[in-house]
């Protein structure tokens, strides 16, 4: 292994890569686009309030205002009070494309004072299942509080809702490691499948074999480039996640090994896919068959815990799952034992695939 030759070849490879718009897009720009889109859509999902339109027919009675304050205090709904002049609230909601409403009936305060049962009308849209549940839960919670107060009771069991890790995490915190894993997968896989098949067709490996550059040196320079790209992409994603969406993620020391062994794993897998293919077209098909299921089933965009059990089993055989799980364990949960297990799995796979790929692709022919 001659490191001077590795250092000579590395910038030439990098230059060729960076001048290729598709490679640059897939490795750096596409993950950024994804974090901006997914971040914008989901970043506030942990704290967002469901709009609730209230028609107070009890004309500002103290009891109705107390109830609305209790409802507001749940933090689950954003209350907008409309004038009783709007008439039928259900019709009003439909005309204004609103999905949730509450009617406080006339005489609410008097009924409460007299301990007479009073019915609150809650309108929800069944098509917005989660929002309906939130509204119903909030109204029920406020009503229970009022009932308890009227009964002279005292809160004994008081739940406190926090996110995992005792920190207020949002979707973006889980998305950032997922997209780093995405970047670790996509960039080397797509380009190595392409490189190993088209370079074979164009006899570029043969061309290189006529220089003193060895296969091991070529592989080393290639690994180094994709490690650099993965690290750069991770830095971009973390920066955007933190600055734009307020994500609570940092590139910890425990996460760094995944940015090294991950690219080695997927460079090897891409090289292998391209080497066993006869044409660039068939290599592309094989690459897509490997890459796309892994992209969506490894917890990149959605937590694997949401999958049905059989799909979780599938996820567990995909190498990217261990990269993303490890990154999550390192960057979100700060759980070193889980990191070590994932790192061990990824490292073993990387070594095995690197050896197999190195044997499968040849400079010279027997």
């Amino acid at each position, binding site marked *: 292994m001659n490191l*001077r030759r590795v250092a*000579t070849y590395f910038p*030439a490879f990098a230059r*060729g890569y960076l001048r290729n718009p598709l490679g640059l897009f897939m490795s750096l720009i596409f993950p950024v686009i994804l974090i901006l889109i997914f971040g914008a859509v989901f970043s506030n999902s942990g704290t967002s309030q469901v709009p609730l339109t209230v028609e107070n027919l009890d004309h500002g009675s103290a009891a109705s205002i107390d109830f609305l304050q209790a409802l507001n205090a749940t933090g689950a709904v954003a209350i907008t009070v409309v004038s009783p002049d709007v008439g039928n609230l259900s019709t009003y909601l439909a005309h204004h494309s609103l999905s949730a409403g509450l009617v406080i009936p006339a005489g609410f305060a008097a009924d409460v004072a007299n301990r007479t049962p009073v019915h609150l009308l809650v309108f929800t849209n069944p098509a917005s299942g989660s929002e309906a549940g939130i509204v119903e839960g909030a109204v029920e919670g406020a009503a229970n509080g009022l009932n308890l107060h009227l009964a002279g009771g005292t809160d004994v069991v008081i739940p406190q809702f926090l996110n995992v890790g005792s920190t207020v995490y949002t979707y973006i915190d889980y998305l950032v490691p997922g997209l780093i894993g995405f970047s670790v997968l996509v960039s080397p896989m797509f380009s190595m499948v392409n490189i190993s098949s088209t370079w074979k067709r164009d*006899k*570029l490996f043969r061309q290189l074999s006529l220089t*003193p550059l060895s296969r091991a040196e070529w592989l080393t320079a290639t690994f180094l480039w994709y490690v650099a790209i993965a690290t750069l992409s991770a830095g971009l994603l973390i920066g955007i996640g933190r600055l734009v969406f307020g994500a609570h993620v940092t590139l910890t020391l425990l996460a760094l090994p995944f940015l090294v062994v991950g690219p080695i794993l997927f460079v090897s897998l891409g090289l292998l896919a391209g080497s066993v293919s006869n044409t660039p077209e068939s290599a592309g098909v094989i690459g897509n068959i490997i890459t796309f299921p892994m992209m969506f089933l490894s917890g990149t965009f959605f937590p694997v815990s949401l999958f049905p059990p059989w799909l979780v089993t599938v996820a567990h055989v995909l190498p990217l799952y261990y990269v993303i799980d490890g990154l999550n364990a390192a960057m979100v949960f700060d759980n070193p034992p889980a990191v070590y297990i994932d790192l061990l799995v990824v490292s073993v796979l990387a070594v095995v695939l690197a050896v197999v790929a190195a044997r499968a692709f040849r400079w010279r022919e*027997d």
Partner: protein
Amino acid sequence: MSTSASVEVSKLLKAYGSLRAVDGIDFVVPTGEVFSFLGPNGAGKTTTVEILEGLRRRTGGEVRVLGLDPWTQMDRLRTRIGVIPQDFHFFPKLTPLEAIRLYAGLFDVKADAAGLLARVELTDKADARFDTLSGGQRQKLGVALALVNDPELCFLDEPTTGLDPRARRSIWEVIRNLRREGRTIFLTTHYLDEAQQLSDRIAIINQGRIIATGSPDEIISRYGRTERLRVVAEPALADRLAALGFTVERDNGALEVELRSKADALRILETIVNSGLAWESFSTRTDTLEDVFIRLVGRLEDGSLPASTPPEARA
């Protein structure tokens, strides 16, 4: 290994199962010469060249390139040879200047990049990316890269295929200059005129066997037909000439009459004039390397060997 030979091949064999792509061939390439290796597609030409370049393992026989075994001593050999592969490709987004600097770095030599580009007339494309270069410009870059390590022996595998006549002649000039510098050139080509123009020595391979070797003139004189007089005249003239003992062939509306001596030409012309038959033109014609090549290879289509086939091809 003799010091005057850059390449020595003895009983070289390359088999793929029962198929013998190269079937026990022998030849020598003297140092400082342009040696052309010719043959039809599938004759074993590229296989042989790749064995010499160290890219393919041989099944049997002995090969020495600059005194080294190209398969087992490739590490030592690659710094002393330059190779332009057939249909040369390079990294599409690199420029010729960057390509030469890359090669210089890999070979650990100080290359005069500007000088090399000037030598192959590529100075004005020094900063153009490879994927924007024309076919001729790409081949020229291939030549420049093959020279980065100042090689003693250059393998040029069909360096002018697909190029326009001007680009071809430009590459020819580069090859002539390499020869003048004392380098040995191993050239494979489909263009027989190219081989005839450039080569000191030629070997023709067909069906894995060498069927002719020698200088272009030697091959033409050994395997070519005698000089002929070509006459565009009425067909009836053929019978008159045949009656006088001449061998006459019809070729594309003309008559070709074999000349056994210079005096034959005068007798034929006299016969034409005296016959009263109409005639348009006449000229003399000798076989070119291409004529010989087609006759040799064509004759082998039926499985027989030419009468004057060298002994090694009969082995």
